[in-house]
């Protein structure tokens, strides 16, 4: 069972969530501040971080950035919609998904599972032994789940990696945001399309030469996104 680090300042919510997660068999470490959270990240080595954005002291956004600076551990924001810090900012800071509070343990569990699945996508689609694929300067290794650019490994967060794998598996095919939400994030069709936009933005900043004129992940205005085609 995945080990979960919960960073949440409200003691009652902390207790409630820990209770719910423990019932599902997770080993859970709960801390009340961002600073403690960063320490626990090293000591506890969680498989997933549940992060509240509204934290005293170092806010959730900063925590998110710091975690991303050193680790590719999946981050799920535990946010109350309408909070002063918008969830989009958290997504742009590197979070992979979010859950709106108040949420039942089942909902949190489902989100966590979806994010964790993102890290280990179904290997069957590609079949073993195909080896890395080269597209332009990118080298995508579906087996090792490694993406290299000019031979250098890119530190892609789980959702970024899965989105890239998903899009590049069907080059030049356009996917709507809703489709991507369903297939990559396992949200409902009507999930928050901002998840996709934020993730595309982060992905572009890592793989594109000029994120403002992307060649790998292109926008199809009014429809969604597609991988390529690369300019000749």
């Amino acid at each position, binding site marked *: 069972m995945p080990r979960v680090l919960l960073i949440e300042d409200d003691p009652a919510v902390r207790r409630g969530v820990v209770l719910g997660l423990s019932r599902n068999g997770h080993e859970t470490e709960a801390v009340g501040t961002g600073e403690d959270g960063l320490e626990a990240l090293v000591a506890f080595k969680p498989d997933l971080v549940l992060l509240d954005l509204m934290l005293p002291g170092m806010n959730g956004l900063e925590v998110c950035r710091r975690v991303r600076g050193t680790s590719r551990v999946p981050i799920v924001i535990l946010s109350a919609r309408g909070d002063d810090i918008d969830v989009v900012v958290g997504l742009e800071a590197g979070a992979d998904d979010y859950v709106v509070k108040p949420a039942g*343990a089942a909902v949190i569990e489902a989100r966590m599972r979806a994010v964790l699945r993102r890290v280990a996508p179904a290997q069957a689609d590609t079949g073993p032994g195909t080896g890395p694929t080269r597209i332009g300067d990118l080298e995508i290794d579906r087996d090792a789940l490694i993406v290299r650019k000019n031979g250098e490994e890119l530190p892609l967060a789980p959702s970024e990696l899965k989105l890239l794998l998903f899009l590049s598996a069907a080059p030049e095919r356009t996917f709507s945001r809703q489709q991507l939400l369903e297939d990559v994030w396992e949200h409902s069709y*009507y999930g*928050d399309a901002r998840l996709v936009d934020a993730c595309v933005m982060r992905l572009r900043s890592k793989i594109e030469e000029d994120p403002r004129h992307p060649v790998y992940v292109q926008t199809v205005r009014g429809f969604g996104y597609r991988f390529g085609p690369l300019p000749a």
Partner: protein
Amino acid sequence: MRIAPPRGLRPRLVVAFVLVAALSALITAALTFRQARSAILDRTQNSAVHDLRLQIDSLAPNLPDDPTDTDLRTFARQLDRASGSRGWHTAVARDGGPLIGTANDVSGALRDATESGDTTFYEREEHADGPRLLIGMPISYTDRRGKAEKPSGLVAYAVLSLDGERADISALITAAWAGAVPALAFAAVPALFAARRVLRPVRQLRTAAEKITSGALDTRLDVVGKDELAALTGTFNTMAAGLERDDAELRRMEANARRFAADVSHELRTPLAAMAAVTDALDEDARSGTLPPDTADAVLLISGETRKLTGMVEDLMEISRFDAGAAVLHLDDVSLRTVVHKTLHLRGWREPDEVITELPEEDLRLRVDARRVDVVLANLIGNALRHGAAPVTVRATATRESLVIEVADEGPGIPDHVLPHVFDRFYKADAARARSEGSGLGLAIAMENVRLHDGTLTVANVPDGGAVFTLTLPRTPRQEDQS
């Protein structure tokens, strides 16, 4: 044809001004004309009478005591010759006899008047040849013995043409006109100026009132002078200040009420988040049979109500976002068919037992916020299933400008007194009825979502039973906030 009175204040003022000027000019001209005319005529008359008297007095002594007709004719001819520039014609009559001389057409009235006394009479008359002055003058002479004058029974008549005088008088009339018309024209100029002066504050008041109507409650006017219009402007300013104050107060109260609702739901969320995280665990234990039965019931009750409360708080938050204007559209191109079927699929509504869809043959592309349209559709269909009766029909038709989606149920319809309130927040159709599963905000939220799309949402009962909600969305939304 009826002439409509002028409408604006300015033409009315100018017309009144010109009328007054015209009236005074007319009266002045008429009085002056009357005076001048009688002065001219009197002078002519008096001098003619005077001259005639002189001539008669100098010629009458030459007449014999008992003059013959020939003498009289000679006398008249002498008088004619002495007329000088006046050019009168004279005749003499004796004791009411026929006229002897060159004057003719002397009226009977003048002759009667003259013959009965020794006074000179005259009259003016219109003749075929032009206006004439007739003078009748009894001749009396002193005899040679210096005795007192005695009437001779002779009357001299003179006829003078008044053509010259008439010409003078017409010249007067012409002059009066020539003076009055430009005066009237000139009167319009000060009238316009006066109207402008009076109307400028009126116009300013009007502009200011229009500004206030359009919402610029801080509009004020400068008070100039101390007249009635200045007082009115002052009152206007006071009124505007009052309006602005009340408006600000109302807005403040409204904002407070909204903030309160938002704050309350916000504050409720944290404890709810803690409770919601454990409801699943509670349910599990309550159903496992390990708890005493009434504890299990109580636990299930708590977890169920916690979920409802959570939904209600979420709806309140959503409404607060609409109230605060914080709700934004995230437009996307989606297919109508997909939207409708995803909505049904996500809620687990079965086709065609529960919901029948009648969509256009050709699949439409919509530019909408799909999540919000889903909320609206789910609300309408959910409502129809709860309060009406299955199957619910979802029928979509499209025109060039808009898409119309009707959601109709097979139930008894909505009571007439409830119809106008179905979109009200927390409206309870029947105060005594147990609360429904919803938060009481569902249709209000649906309405807000439709408004955000510039669409309309209406409800009606169909004659053969059942309620129908009609959702109209423009096919090309005004707002484009996302690429």
